[in-house]
């Protein structure tokens, strides 16, 4: 097939759900533009697609992208790619905005990823725990982490088989050598879908707001070779420090200062060894499980290593 024929076939495929277009028809239109009017092929393609969009009364974003590669979530590494997925709905979250129909986590053997379905796409609702084949979803990147967006053209087919959700958690260990700023009793922006941590009562997006209290610890684990930044959320922070949100608020109220909370916490954390497990988000490990490494160290294994030199 010539390059022109390939493009023609792809365009015909893209419209196959809406229009019955003979491939020759597409080829002829492309040929006229490219050969007679010397239009670059990409531009010619765009023009031909526009013509058929008009004919079908469709918007450009309703257009399918033909046959996409069936992709594993773990292989997604580029923004705005059209992919097909076979996934299980691992978690559904409360949509933070009216424009969002559904938001949550989908997973396959390679791990999990956030998905969003918009109200305007008018798609059937996904159910938690069920497996689906999703065609024509678009990848999205924000600060290095990826999500997938469902859209009007997304095909949703419930599967009989169960797609196993893989574990994309990592385990890291080391000495806790630093507790970073923004730890302890913090305030988050209360705006819908915004959970930014406030700096001096200000949200970087929404300005001065009345914040909502939360607990977290941002820490650094270091094993002498690598450093890992880890985040304990409210639940794991409470478990780690034995201080819950109410106590933390009381401490801050008594001292008229929120920083007393983190100061109280760090004495029992810095210099201790931990092993933590959780998914990686951006450059952080989000701690699901942790363990204080207090078992007696075993010098024998290292002595054997020394003797082998």
């Amino acid at each position, binding site marked *: 097939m010539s390059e022109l024929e390939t493009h023609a076939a792809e365009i015909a495929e893209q419209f196959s759900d809406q229009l019955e277009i003979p491939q020759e028809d597409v080829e002829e239109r492309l040929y006229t533009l490219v050969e007679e009017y010397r239009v670059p092929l990409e531009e010619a393609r765009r023009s031909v697609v526009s013509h058929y969009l008009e004919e079908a009364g469709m918007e450009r974003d309703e257009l399918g992208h033909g046959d996409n590669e069936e992709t594993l979530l773990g292989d997604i590494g580029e923004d705005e790619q059209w992919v097909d997925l076979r996934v299980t709905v691992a978690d559904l979250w409360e949509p933070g905005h009216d424009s969002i129909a559904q938001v949550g986590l989908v997973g396959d053997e390679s791990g999990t990823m956030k998905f969003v379905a918009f109200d305007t796409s008018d798609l059937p609702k996904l159910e938690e725990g069920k497996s689906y084949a999703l065609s024509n979803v678009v990848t999205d990147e924000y600060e290095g982490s990826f999500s997938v967006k469902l859209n009007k053209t997304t095909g949703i087919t419930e599967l009989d088989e169960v797609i196993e959700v893989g574990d994309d958690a990592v385990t890291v260990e080391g*000495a806790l050598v630093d507790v970073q700023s923004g730890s302890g009793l913090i305030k988050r922006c209360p705006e819908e879908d915004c959970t930014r941590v406030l700096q001096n009562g200000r949200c970087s997006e929404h300005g001065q707001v009345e914040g909502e209290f939360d607990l977290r610890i941002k820490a650094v684990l270091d094993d002498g070779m690598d450093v890992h*930044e880890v985040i304990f959320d409210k639940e794991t922070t409470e478990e780690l420090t034995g201080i819950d949100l109410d106590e933390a608020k009381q401490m801050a109220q008594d001292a008229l200062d929120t920083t007393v909370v983190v100061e109280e916490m760090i004495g029992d954390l810095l210099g201790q*060894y931990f092993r933590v497990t959780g998914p990686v988000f951006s450059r952080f490990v989000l701690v699901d499980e942790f363990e204080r490494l207090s078992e*007696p160290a075993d010098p*024998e294994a290292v*002595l054997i290593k*020394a003797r082998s030199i």
Partner: protein
Amino acid sequence: MSSNDTPMREVARRAFATEFNDASHTFKESDDERAPAYQLLPTGEKANRVFFVGTLTEKEDIGDDNEYWRGRIVDPTGTFFVYAGQYQPEAASALRELEPPAYVAVVGKPRTYETDDGNVNVSVRPESITVVDAATRDRWVVETAERTIERVAAFDDEGSEAQDASGSRSSSGYNEYARMAADRYDLDPQQYLDHAVEALQSMEGAKSADADETAETESEPTP
């Protein structure tokens, strides 16, 4: 990806006190005024930050007008000296409150100071000092012995096809900082391996070790 936005946090190296105190050479890797300063460990590693655990045996406020605390912290091989003043308020207040003897964990930056007679004293400017228990101290001794042994094992890597067993060296296999250490110091890395082995043998768990085998290891010269 996003790691280019913020400079990478420096790893806290593990070294016993004898090696740390021998590490008198410091250097920078760029002309930038804010470029990090590194201490060169004699076993061939750069250290911008260290982490150690030991017994605080003495503390003294040696400041004149302002508080300036000096602490002696002992590990199985020697003594770390830490100095904390008004610019290290957390560490200074920790030293003020602590009653020796106590097991402490220290995160800090290596500092060197040249005395009038030309010697270079190496000390630590602590970022944090916290009280820990004996199990944490033991874990640090084993970990530090392991890191030291790995460094000595990789010391002679010249970047030939022979990769070292630990696999932790740079992919090229050429041990740049070991070459720098061989160039700068007249210190045999083997002695730090011996210290690491002695530190391990001094621990409770190792006392049951076969005495013959121990003696053999100590007397056997390593090529």
